[in-house]
């Protein structure tokens, strides 16, 4: 009898490093079988070239409702139940039509116009944290509120309602219980359906929701779902990257010193942090809509495919000494934001937020340090956006 394929995704032991078993998976074939959370067999892509080839292949579907879609968590179970899918779960032509409606808010130019606003948000969060600290929780007081406020402003989601959002989102993205997650998702969706109605009554096109509400380009239901998923996608990932990025930099004090000495150095450093952390094992999930031959194997129609950055971004043929954090390297080709038509819509916003946040942090608090060792931080379960929910620091 052969042994059952390994589970994927797996849990991190140290929250800022990939699960130990991933190193072994990288040594094996480019495509191999794994077992998902739901107990399905699916294909895991372990190499960079094959990952990019497949993410561009039009025969792969992102539609969570399709039989065989890899169910890697309770959260994916909930998505498979949905009648309507958000952008990330759409296929063309529907996907491309909706993506183009959102694009005007995410161009490099539009994002760069937000710099002063993001800087203000970053400094206000630091002001507040420094008023009562040290000590402080860098996740709760900085890494989380900064991207949360930025995405609320971009969408036009009222900041006064942040406690509701944060509570409902936490119940949705952290639960292991489908009923609890379903309930939290329904509350969020109902909230945004109401908000869309409000924007139709009182037009205000400062934010994305107000810009699109009532224009006839998109149905109210789809806009509400889009707003909800943009709110989540726009901060959960970025908050994880700000906090884990800070951990990785504190773990590498010489490189941190070099970055602080050179204002240009933060740009490549953020790309390397994105590559090194590759927090989104839960992204880049697909199902085959036809038989696909690649690398000597045949992915059968209806089989699930996992294409995680956590493996492809550590392909030694593309990134030399992939397990070494090297803030000066050219990591620009990483697929931490995905690849193909679903490549992250918010990537240039995320880059800017990370650059600003991780620069201001040490400008304001040069002596910042963790009060526990990196290994003592608590990792999130596999299938979640990888990150931490608390980062105790002092200065």
């Amino acid at each position, binding site marked *: 009898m052969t042994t059952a394929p390994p589970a994927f995704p797996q849990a991190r032991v140290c929250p800022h490093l990939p699960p130990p078993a991933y190193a072994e998976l990288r040594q094996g074939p480019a495509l191999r079988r794994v077992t998902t959370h739901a107990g399905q067999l699916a294909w895991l892509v372990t190499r960079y070239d094959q990952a990019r080839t497949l993410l561009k292949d039009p025969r792969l579907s992102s539609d969570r409702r399709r039989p065989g879609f890899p169910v890697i968590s309770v959260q994916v179970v909930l998505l498979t139940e949905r009648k309507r899918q958000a952008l990330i779960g759409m296929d063309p032509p529907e996907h491309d039509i909706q*993506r183009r409606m959102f694009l005007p808010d995410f*161009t490099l130019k539009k994002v760069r116009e937000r710099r002063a606003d993001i800087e203000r948000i970053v400094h206000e969060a630091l002001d507040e944290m420094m008023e009562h600290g040290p000590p402080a929780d860098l996740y709760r007081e900085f890494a989380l509120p900064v991207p949360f406020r930025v995405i609320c402003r971009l969408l036009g989601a009222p900041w006064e309602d942040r406690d509701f959002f944060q509570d409902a989102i936490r119940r949705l993205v952290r639960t292991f219980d489908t009923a609890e997650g379903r309930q939290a998702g329904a509350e969020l969706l109902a909230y945004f359906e109401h908000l869309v109605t409000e924007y139709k009554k009182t037009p205000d096109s400062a934010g994305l929701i107000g810009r699109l509400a009532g224009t006839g380009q998109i149905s109210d239901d789809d806009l509400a779902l889009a707003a909800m998923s943009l709110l989540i996608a726009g901060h959960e990932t970025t908050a994880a990257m700000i906090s884990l990025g800070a951990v990785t930099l504190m773990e590498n004090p010489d490189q941190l010193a070099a970055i602080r000495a050179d204002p240009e150095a933060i740009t490549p450093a953020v790309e390397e942090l994105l590559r090194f952390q590759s927090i989104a094992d839960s992204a880049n999930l697909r199902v085959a809509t036809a038989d696909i031959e690649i690398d000597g194997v045949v992915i059968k129609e209806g089989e699930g495919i996992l294409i995680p950055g956590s493996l492809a971004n550590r392909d030694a043929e593309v990134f030399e000494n992939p397990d070494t954090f090297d803030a000066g390297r050219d990591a620009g080709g990483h697929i931490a934001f995905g690849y193909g038509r679903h490549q992250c819509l918010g990537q240039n916003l995320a880059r800017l937020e990370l650059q600003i946040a991780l620069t201001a942090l040490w400008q304001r608090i040069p002596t910042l340090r963790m009060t526990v060792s990196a290994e003592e931080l608590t990792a999130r379960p596999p299938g979640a956006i990888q990150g931490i929910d608390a980062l105790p620091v002092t200065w």
Partner: protein
Amino acid sequence: MGVEGDQRVCIGAGMCALTAPGVFDQDENGLVVVLTEAPSGEAWDKALRAERLCPSGAVRVGRSSG
């Protein structure tokens, strides 16, 4: 053949404008526009890199003008 950007397949990720700013831009709808059809020197290298990084295949870079 110089540099091409195909708006029909572009998904507006902006990798091209980020990677080779003098060669590519995004219009207000987020779609690729070519600013320099025949870049040379460093701009050419950046255009090639943008072709490699473009997630949609919209960026095509032909032969260098020298």
